[in-house]
């Protein structure tokens, strides 16, 4: 059975990528299971989707624990533990990263022994959640790496999955998917089918007996705001609101009141401060600020400027 996982941000089309690959497998005569996985996250949050394909009916279900192929549409997710990009990756797993950095840089950085291939295809865009055609591109590259999907099946899958969006959209996606298919042709068939888990020789689950604990500890009560400090929802952000204090008129309440996440605090003298660890980048404050003192800056650009600043001054941003 082939087990494939796509990682990206909400909005980048990972569900579409899994459906294109699923349909292409189905077209090639395989039994298929494809599914996206996300909860209450919004655009920009790390999400993943997966595909299983086999010649026999598939009884396995749920999250893929041991992937044969992992595709990462957005390389900024690789170092984010919450995105789970590297979960279950072994020496047999092929890793395909959409990145302008070279494969050996990633090999060294991640210290993993399995093959890594980069796909330097996406032109940089302002809002990364809009990364154009990346879903179809990833599916195209995946089809080549798997090696059992004929080009015609890939084409037909894209036409099936995106047909409802009109012929212009289908054409642009086809163009990108086929370019990626060609680009990774030297690695044709690199990803291979993983084996079924063994009932004879398996890692025994280390089950725990839950102790009885008092309700003070074991009740999931939430009586206060700011109860999820360690959940860094700032990682979801693809655009960053930045306050121009020379234009801020210290109204003290508009941006902080409209912020749906309580991520803007106002100091005693009426100066707003954005908590970037938790600001999800919804840009409601940008729209609400009466003197237009808040600008939307692409997050990757803001981060690049920060690290440059850190490099020149030696101070953390």
């Amino acid at each position, binding site marked *: 059975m082939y087990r494939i996982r796509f990682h990206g941000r909400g909005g980048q089309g990972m569900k579409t990528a899994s459906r294109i690959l699923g349909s292409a497998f189905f077209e090639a005569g395989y039994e298929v299971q494809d*599914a996206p996985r996300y909860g209450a996250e919004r655009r920009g949050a790390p999400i993943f989707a997966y595909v299983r394909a086999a010649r026999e009916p598939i009884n396995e279900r749920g999250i893929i624990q041991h992937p044969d192929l992992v595709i990462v549409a957005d390389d900024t997710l690789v170092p984010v533990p919450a995105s789970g990009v590297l979960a279950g990756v072994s020496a047999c797993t092929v890793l395909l990263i959409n990145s302008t950095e070279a494969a050996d840089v990633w090999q060294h950085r991640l210290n993993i022994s399995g093959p890594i291939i980069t796909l330097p295809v996406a032109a940089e865009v302002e809002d990364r959640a809009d990364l154009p055609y990346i879903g179809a591109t990833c599916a195209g590259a995946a089809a080549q790496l798997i090696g059992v999907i004929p080009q015609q099946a890939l084409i037909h899958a894209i036409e099936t999955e995106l047909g409802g969006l009109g012929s212009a959209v289908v054409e642009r996606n086809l163009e990108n998917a086929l370019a990626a298919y060609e680009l990774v042709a030297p690695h044709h068939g690199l990803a291979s089918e993983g084996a079924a*888990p063994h009932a004879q020789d398996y890692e025994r689950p280390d089950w725990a007996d839950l102790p009885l604990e008092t309700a003070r500890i074991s009740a999931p009560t939430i009586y206060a705001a700011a109860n999820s400090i360690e959940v860094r929802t700032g990682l979801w952000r693809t655009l960053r609101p930045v306050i121009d204090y020379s234009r801020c008129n210290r109204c003290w309440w508009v941006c902080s009141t409209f912020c749906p996440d309580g991520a803007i605090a106002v100091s005693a003298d009426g100066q707003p401060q954005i908590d970037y660890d938790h600001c999800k980048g919804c840009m409601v404050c940008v729209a609400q600020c009466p003197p237009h003192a808040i600008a939307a800056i692409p997050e990757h650009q803001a981060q690049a400027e920060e690290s440059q600043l850190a490099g020149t001054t030696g101070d953390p941003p």
Partner: protein
Amino acid sequence: MSRTLLTGNGAAAWGARLAHADYIPAFPITPQTEIIETLAQWIDTGQMDSRLVTLESEHSMITAAGGAAATGVRVFSATSSQGLLYAMEMLYTVAGWRTPFVLVNVSRGLSAPITLEADHNDVMAARDCGFLQLHCATCQEVLDNTLIAYRLAEDERVRLPVIVNLDGFYLSFTREPVIIPDPQETTAFVGPFNPASIHFRASAPESQAVAVLGGAPYSYFRYELHLAAQNALSVYDEIRAEFRETFGRDYPAVDAYHAEDAELVFVMLGSFATKARAAVDQLREAGWSIGLVQPHLLRPFPEPLLQQLLAGKRGVAVIDQNLSMGKGGVLHTELAAALYGHPDAPPVLASFIGGLGGRDITAEEFFEIARVLRDAVSAGRAPLPRLLYTRDELLEIRKLQAVAHVERKELGKTT
């Protein structure tokens, strides 16, 4: 007939479409919403001739469903989790009215704490209300069972609403190959709704009871409902046989996989049962005498078939994806009641709780359940009930609790 990739939600919508549901009261909730969105789109584009109405709550939605079904039209609705519970008062009421319709429930764990992912506590909460329950393990079953459910609900010998249950995420958002049967065949199979005695009309009053009853007449009506639900078992077998002849797919009230010659048996409901099936394949390859028994009907509870399939087994592991607080797994409890006193009943009936809130059950855990069961059979006594929960998972909770503790301190609540 075509074989295509469909989600469980897509399959449920196809079931309603092929059954020609006339009226669809609706209210959105994750992970069900895709069903009513799909139906709304078909109605909007003229591909389906039906009336979809959005209500202000699930309570009103089920009231509207029951009210419409009482006039003799074919009704479909769908909900999930908190929505099913919000409708609970009316689930009992419309079942008491003996109005036949089909409600798809996309299983999702209940609050608090809140989750979006699958477990069966929602549908178990509706266990005693008078709705019959069909539990699906694949997307194909969702489509097929929606058709079967209409036949069962509308049969004069039954006349009860039916819940078709599928697991959130594991089926609702998962695409797999599904055969969409030929519409002419499905139309012939489901047939037109023959309302017979169901003909509630405005300005045409009719009564079969008084509004408030004493215990004895109340008991009569409630027990008749119970008898009708029990009667559904044999009616189901007739419908299932007809379905098998027409479409070539078979859904026995209890499915058995390699169970006949097995010494040990897993018992499970819903989509996780396919994972148990995969584990049985692996265990058999490693020389184990093990199988799977998977109830398809939960209400009526198919006792005779379960007694027969489990007779002579040495050990049974019931894996419940639900938890009755202060008791344990519901399926384990019901199975114990069904097997008690039978001379061939398995001596070891072990209880495992797993998959709460969508928590995965790994292949290795199925292998370990088999090992624990085998050891229990050797020792001659059932193990204590076991929650499938690892030390690493407990460690994760400890980390979160430590963070919460620090936060409490920062918030000035140091107790």
